[in-house]
């Protein structure tokens, strides 16, 4: 049983902590509302932009087939020769090509700068680990190197955004290509440009098979879901059936494919990165708000518990003192 004095100090320190967590809850709640708004507002744009590029990608394979049978044959031939040379429409940039022979994948991880977000970061990093392990065999640490099939041995390079992700990656000695500082203010599209440029350059170099983004998707204030999104190549892993492809395909480009794609592709990459960052931000603030709310409530419970014990002890003490005084008085009479 702790003494009265100890109890008093504990109650005091807990109420101090409660003040801090309550303040943080208020701050996060305000930020949360803002970031949730921003996320929801731009979601339509991002998803429509994504659909657009998938449509074009799906159409592009068929577009070359439409001029005539010869083109199909040519495509077939070139595809047989080298699957990596899937140059489709004239003017398709390197971004529209896929590089199945590349040996690396690039991974962009969006985490928070600070903790106190519950399991938000650790859930995400677990997902990273799991996905990477299934996709990648670590070349240096793989003991039976000889056994692994050369064509499937992939290496992962990491790009981090947010301090937590960077720290974990450095601690576990992963290859970190770049670290982008996460700002505490609301991000603007200009902040995305360097990230988008880096990713574009990496992918265009042809060394990377895929670019993945790991982020926390904002579902609701209480639920955030760690997700992985394949940014590049645009084609989804599921191959659509040939027939439907031919029907929906054949997009007309104005003025011409090269010109349109030159503007369109960077914009789409930016919008996707921007959206995932917004989602992460909203998730972070929501998670922190909920965590701080829980902490404040827990502190309240603890305080009322301790106060009860304290009062009981104090009452006990008074009763004992009274008994002693009475006993002393009786002894004197």
């Amino acid at each position, binding site marked *: 049983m702790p003494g009265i004095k100890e109890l008093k100090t504990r109650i005091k320190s807990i109420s101090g902590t409660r003040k801090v967590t309550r303040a943080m809850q208020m701050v996060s709640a305000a930020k949360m509302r803002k970031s949730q708004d921003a996320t929801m*507002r*731009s979601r*339509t*744009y*991002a998803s*429509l*932009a994504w*659909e*657009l590029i998938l*449509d*074009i990608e799906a*159409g592009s394979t068929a577009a070359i087939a439409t001029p005539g049978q010869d083109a199909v044959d040519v495509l077939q031939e070139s595809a047989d020769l080298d699957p990596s040379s899937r140059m489709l429409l004239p003017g398709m940039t390197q971004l529209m090509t896929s590089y199945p022979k590349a040996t690396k994948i690039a991974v962009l991880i969006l985490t928070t700068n600070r903790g106190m977000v519950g399991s938000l970061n650790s859930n995400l990093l677990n997902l990273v680990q799991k996905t990477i392990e299934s996709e990648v065999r670590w070349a240096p640490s793989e003991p039976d190197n000889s056994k692994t099939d050369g064509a499937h041995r992939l290496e992962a390079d990491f790009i981090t955004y947010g301090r937590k992700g960077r720290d974990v990656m450095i601690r576990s000695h992963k290859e970190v290509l770049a670290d982008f500082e996460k700002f505490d203010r609301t991000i603007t*599209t200009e902040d995305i440009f360097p990230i988008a440029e880096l990713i574009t350059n990496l992918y265009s170099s042809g060394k990377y098979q895929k670019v993945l983004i790991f982020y926390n998707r904002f579902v609701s204030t209480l639920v955030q879901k760690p997700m992985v999104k394949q940014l590049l190549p645009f084609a989804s892993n599921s191959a659509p059936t040939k027939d439907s492809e031919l*029907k*929906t*395909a*054949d*997009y*007309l*480009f*104005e*003025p011409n494919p090269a*010109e*349109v794609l030159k*503007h*369109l592709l960077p*914009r789409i990459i930016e*919008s996707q990165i*921007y959206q995932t960052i917004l989602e992460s931000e909203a998730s972070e603030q929501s998670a922190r708000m909920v965590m701080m709310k829980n902490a404040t409530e827990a502190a309240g419970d603890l305080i009322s518990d301790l106060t009860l014990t304290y009062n009981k002890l104090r009452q006990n003490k008074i009763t004992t003192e009274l008994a002693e005084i009475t006993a002393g008085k009786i002894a004197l009479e």
Partner: protein
Amino acid sequence: MSKLNFQLVTPERTVLKEELDSLSCPTTLGQITILPGHIPLVATLTAGELVAKSGGKEHFINVTGGFIEVRPNSQVVALADAAEHHYEIDVQKTEEAVKRAQKAISETKMSSEEYAKVAASLNQSLTRLNIARKHSHRRQPITGEGVFKE
């Protein structure tokens, strides 16, 4: 008669989502009009006025670049960098912006990059002003704030 299933979105909001009879929009190759049953198309939008007609109703919307996609089955999606209805344009603010830009162009020395930036914004402001003035006689409800923040 079939209709166009049209959606105009910007990164900030959905500006218009409606069934339309026809849609005219400014592209790099000039003004184009899309009617129901158009073949799939992707085009680059430039700054200008987008006119959406449905029944007797018309929407006049200022857009500042972006993309337009016509999907099969008359689905039309416009991804604009920014867009606003003509009644949302703040004429006074836009006039001020025009004056500022004109002053900047005539008075200060700029690198070609800066010049292009100012010229582009001047062009946009002038387009907005044109659209606002052209339709100023139409009475439309005034809704909150515009998309633009100068």
